[in-house]
């Protein structure tokens, strides 16, 4: 399996009034053409890891890494211009809530066309055709109608499909999905995941799926990284989640209510200071 992304000792530090806060503390992993899940609770640094790879870390933060390379390109040393050429073209990112991450004053179709024409030299008519085809590929029933709608006119599930369409139109090799379905209803969630799954495997993309939902991730991904307090505490195959070793992973799995399990009170997570060490 060819390696698409290499991350070694990634650190993201934010300066605050009370000193430096390390949001990500030495994260290492590599990604091939597979589905990798990153799981953790709020504040575990999972989103900042994704953003650092994408190059969306706020300017005041400092990023350092022994190695952060996409397809052999060192992401930390290239110019912002080269980075822009990668972003949206070869690396794409889906964000959590389509309500906030789509441009509210631009029709959905124009946003998709904009992405395409930023990265490829295509005529207007062709761009439109390809955008419509992409909307169809994410199972939007009436792509012509949706093309002209604005984000506030569509439901959350539809907006998220439109965002996936926008991210896939330039044919990226790697996709980072940061909680792509957390804002959606459970039933819609599965539809969107199904679309994402099909497109990722058809196109042979590498996918980083960031989520707080351990069970969802393990049913969707091939491999799972569990983060706690900015560090990776455990890496395992999704199919072997039930044999997780780290007490944090086990605790996280354990504390969720399950249909049919009669446990009162629910087991709670007993956080140990040494997990964060």
């Amino acid at each position, binding site marked *: 399996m060819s390696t698409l992304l290499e991350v070694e000792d990634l650190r993201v530090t934010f300066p605050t009034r009370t000193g430096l806060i390390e949001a990500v503390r030495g994260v290492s992993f590599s990604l091939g053409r597979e589905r990798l899940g990153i799981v953790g*609770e*709020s504040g575990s640094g999972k989103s900042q890891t994704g953003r650092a790879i994408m190059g969306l870390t706020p300017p005041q933060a400092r990023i350092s890494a022994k190695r952060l390379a996409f397809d052999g390109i060192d992401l930390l040393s290239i110019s912002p211009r080269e980075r822009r050429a990668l972003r949206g073209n070869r690396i794409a990112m889906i964000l959590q809530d389509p309500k906030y991450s789509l441009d509210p004053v631009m029709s959905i179709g124009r946003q998709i066309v904009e992405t395409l024409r930023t990265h490829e030299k295509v005529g207007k008519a062709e761009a439109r055709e390809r955008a419509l085809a992409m909307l169809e590929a994410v199972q939007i029933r009436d792509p012509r109608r949706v093309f002209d709608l604005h984000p506030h006119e569509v439901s*959350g599930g539809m907006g998220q499909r439109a965002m996936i369409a926008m991210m896939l139109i330039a044919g990226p090799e790697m996709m980072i999905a940061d909680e792509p379905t957390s804002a959606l*209803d*459970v*039933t*819609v*969630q*599965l539809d969107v*995941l*199904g679309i994402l*799954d099909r497109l990722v495997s058809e196109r042979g993309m590498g996918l980083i799926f960031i989520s*707080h*939902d*351990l*069970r*969802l991730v*393990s*049913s*969707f991904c091939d491999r799972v990284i569990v983060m706690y307090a900015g560090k990776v505490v455990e890496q395992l195959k999704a199919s072997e989640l039930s044999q997780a070793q780290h007490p944090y992973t086990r*605790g*996280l799995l354990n*504390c*969720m*209510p*399950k*249909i*049919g399990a009669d*446990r*009162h*009170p*629910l*087991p*709670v*997570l007993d956080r140990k200071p040494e997990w964060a060490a």
Partner: protein
Amino acid sequence: MSSAIALDRLEVIFDRFRALNGVSLDVQPGESFGLVGESGSGKSTLLRAIAGLAPVASGNITVNGKTLGTRRDKAFYREVQMVFQDPYGSLHPRQTVDRLLQEPLAIHGFADGEKRIERALDEVGLGNGFRFRYAHQLSGGQRQRVAIARALILEPSILLLDEPTSALDASVQAEVLNLLEEVRRRRKLTFLMVSHDLAIITHMCERLMVMQGGEAVENLAAGDLVERRVTKDYTRNLLRASDGFVRV
């Protein structure tokens, strides 16, 4: 014995949109009743209608044997309190926890406020150290505990819970759910709880109602859901969705 909450063909209409379409419901005292459904199914609207926060077009709401009019009196809020979904939005950002908890006591003219605040904070596992903090100095789970303390401080008999843990991390969710169960047991409270998560509802409630598009789809006992004895396709879909992603 009269029901704690009884709804009879309740209709809620916002402008021309019918958010609730003739929903009837019956919750016994001391029972924990769940409402599940997708967004837009009307489950939150139903809670808000009981609390007097949604425009009721027709139908009756009866709480502890008393049929409610359009206005809720003080006595109603002594009996019924609500905990909202978003702990970041439901606490006043410029009031300390102490001030937040004093508000309901002042409204209802309680004299022994000091003792009650101490007790309420203790009950939700926060302790006196949190009394003079602001909401932004607390974590999501701590805020939800304050919201629960505020609901409990008037010693109501009914709690309306609108997705009380959906904004929280899984481990914090477990703590808050345990806390809710514990106060319910100790105070013999009646719960009416909304969630989109079937697992939470089966964990917390004895009976539940599945809603869709402002209407009741079906009424079930939690045990039916566990054994998958459901009759409607919509409920079956929800059940399947809660199992996680299955590759086709």
